[in-house]
């Protein structure tokens, strides 16, 4: 139920402080934005756009620590640390002509910002080994087929589509989105049995969240939940 009825026509991310816009060109601006996630309770989702910018070491780890759901719009050649940064986000959409590659092996280097760990978790061990060992460049279609991205847009539309998805997520429960992200990522490192305990505990902890009560009320009244009444 991606609430397509939400008013997201004129790039809401520009004026909506609930959507954290993460710039990638300047590392200190990038870090400042990521820090806002932890300090600003208005932040409900985050978005960044990547099209082959130079990405500094450590940026993927900084992004991975953001607790809000992070959406990334991809275009151009998403290689090496750009790909590692994209993989540290949660939802990836790309332009139809986007390509992805890890080229460091050919230069005798091991990726060090997560590629060897996040890629197999996202696409499976076979394709991950192929990309890491041979440097093979994959297309947007292949990335979609293997789950590296979950949506392909016509060329030029990925940034706007990423903004739109971030705006939709910003309409969802804030704690619900954060707990969901935590459950999926932290639950991947433990056995299923243990991870189900984690999920259940987070679900019950969420009982204390007023947004949960509003969501249930809205469902039962067949109306759209309004988690931010003070905004409008």
């Amino acid at each position, binding site marked *: *139920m*991606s*609430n397509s009825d939400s008013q997201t026509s004129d790039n809401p991310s520009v004026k909506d402080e609930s959507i954290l816009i993460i710039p990638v060109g300047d590392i200190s601006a990038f870090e400042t934005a990521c820090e806002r996630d932890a300090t600003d309770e208005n932040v409900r989702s985050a978005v960044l756009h990547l099209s082959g910018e130079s990405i500094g070491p450590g940026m993927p780890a900084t992004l991975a620590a953001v607790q809000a*759901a992070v959406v990334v719009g991809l275009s151009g050649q998403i290689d090496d640390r750009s790909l590692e940064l994209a993989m540290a986000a*949660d*939802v*990836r959409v790309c332009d139809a002509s986007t390509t992805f590659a890890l080229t460091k092996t050919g230069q005798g280097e091991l990726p060090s910002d997560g590629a060897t760990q996040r890629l197999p*978790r*996202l*696409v*499976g061990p076979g394709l991950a080994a192929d990309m890491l060992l041979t440097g093979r460049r994959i297309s947007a279609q292949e990335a979609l*087929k293997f*789950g*590296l*991205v*979950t949506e392909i847009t016509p060329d030029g539309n990925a940034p706007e589509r990423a903004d739109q*998805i971030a705006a*939709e*997520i910003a*309409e*969802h*429960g804030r*704690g*619900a*989105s954060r*707990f*969901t*992200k935590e*459950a*999926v*990522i932290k*639950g*991947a490192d433990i*056995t*299923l*049995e243990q*991870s*189900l305990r984690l*999920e*259940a*505990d*987070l*679900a*019950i*902890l*969420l*009982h*204390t*969240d007023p*947004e*949960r*009560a*509003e*969501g*249930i009320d*809205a*469902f*039962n009244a067949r109306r759209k*939940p309004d*988690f931010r009444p003070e905004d409008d």
Partner: protein
Amino acid sequence: MTTEPGTTPFQTVLYEKHGPVAHIVLNRPDVINAFNVQMRDDLSEVLEALRWDPDVRAVLLRGSGERGFCAGADLSEFGSAPSQAAARHARWERDVFGILRDLPMPTIAALHGHVIGSGIELSLLCDIVIASEDAVFSMPETYYGLIAAAGGSQTLPRAIRQGRALDLLLTGRRLNAGEALDAGIAQRVVPKEELEGESEIIAAELAAIDPALARSIKASLAAARDLPLTDGLAHEQRLSIMMGRNAKAN
């Protein structure tokens, strides 16, 4: 519904044994089989009974009515627990999801129409998922300020990998049957009119497997999910030797 031999009446679930195949039908068609407390209790009784039933060699789970398998949790009953501690106690007192996941015999979920929230989660606790072409899937929990609580945040990434799972759980995106097949939520998709027949054929095939073998394969798959490879391989070896020993003894 009439009560036939081998049939027990429940408010929200139909339970029938057809030879070695146990048929469980979620039966609140007026609300697209929304999962409520009564359904949890009914399912719990059914599953507790059949897990020890030597006659049951396969389980087929489906939903009644035209509109869908299951529309998700019945939120009209949400928020009624007296405290978080009580809610936590209730969650594990009748762990219907854990029992379904750990059944010793093969299980198959046959999905049609709406497969929402707990509908997806119930099916991911089964071994095989078959869907009809009209099935639509989504996990809308966060839209309502909720999170998945029937295992979805854990079973979904294990079934379809992390990226797709985060997308579905965070955006509430809808998938059609073909997309669910490509993602790995379903293993087979058939035309709507063939769903019942096809799922019964598969259930009969599953029921024909030697129960000890089926149990060992399920245990090995669980090991593959949770154990380091070397431990999983040793586990498989042990089970294989035990199976051989049993075969000789028979």
